[in-house]
């Protein structure tokens, strides 16, 4: 029998369908972070789990072919820098670090609550990429030189 990467066909098929639903749910949680429970962190974790689902079902090499891990690193770092940039903008315009400087909008609208949705999106990128990269790094630990010496 041919040794294939990842898990069985059943798992792969289910993952192929469900991963989009998971992603969609994560995005929903992020975008409604200022209206309902959830927000950037919870949504980010869900998105990271979607990526991890693919990684578990299809194997590491599949992910490596499709995504550039270095780019994910950069995305993570730049989202942190972006968060600080929003904070400093608040300092320049609003009168305090992370102060709100755009209109609050109407309560319970999707586009409301000033900078909070923006920050939620930034945090979700940071968390999802960060979590995925952490697990990825742990899973490739045995491949590098650390294991060989001594």
């Amino acid at each position, binding site marked *: 029998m041919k040794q294939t990467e990842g898990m069985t066909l059943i798992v792969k098929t289910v993952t192929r369908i469900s991963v989009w639903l998971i992603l969609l749910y994560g995005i929903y949680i992020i975008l409604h972070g200022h209206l*309902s429970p959830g927000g950037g*962190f919870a949504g980010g974790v869900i998105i990271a789990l979607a990526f991890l689902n693919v990684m578990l079902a299809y194997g590491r090499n599949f992910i490596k072919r499709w995504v550039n891990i270095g780019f994910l690193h950069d995305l993570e770092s730049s989202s942190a820098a972006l968060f600080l940039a929003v904070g400093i903008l608040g300092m320049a315009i609003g009168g305090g670090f992370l102060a709100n400087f755009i209109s609050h909008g109407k*309560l*319970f609208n999707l586009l409301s609550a000033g900078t909070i949705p923006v920050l939620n999106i930034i945090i979700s990128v940071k968390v999802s990429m960060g979590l995925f990269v952490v697990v990825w790094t742990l899973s490739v*630990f*045995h491949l590098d030189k*650390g*294991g060989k010496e*001594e």
Partner: protein
Amino acid sequence: MIVYILCFTLFLVGIYGALTKRDLIKIILSLGIMGYAVNLMIILFAYKEGGSFAILVKDGINSNMVDPLPQALILTSIVIELGITAMLVALSIRLFQKYKTFDITKIRRLSG
């Protein structure tokens, strides 16, 4: 009162595990239990009899909501614990590569 005592028992279970277990992974799990016990305790501090979730609702007034601040604190502390746990797991993988064992009593190249 009984819930606080149970929480504290959970905390003691965690600290017992962290101090006496010999397996690296079990130590990490014990630290997790300890952290969760404290998180649970702080959430319980915020709870009041018959309290409801702490968000605004569209129709009507959500009176009698529980204190939302500890929940925010716990979210932060969970994130921190996630980071520390990832760090510890990474360190224990490396330790396994170097020493070929998870037994803490065999990992003692540092002395004194």
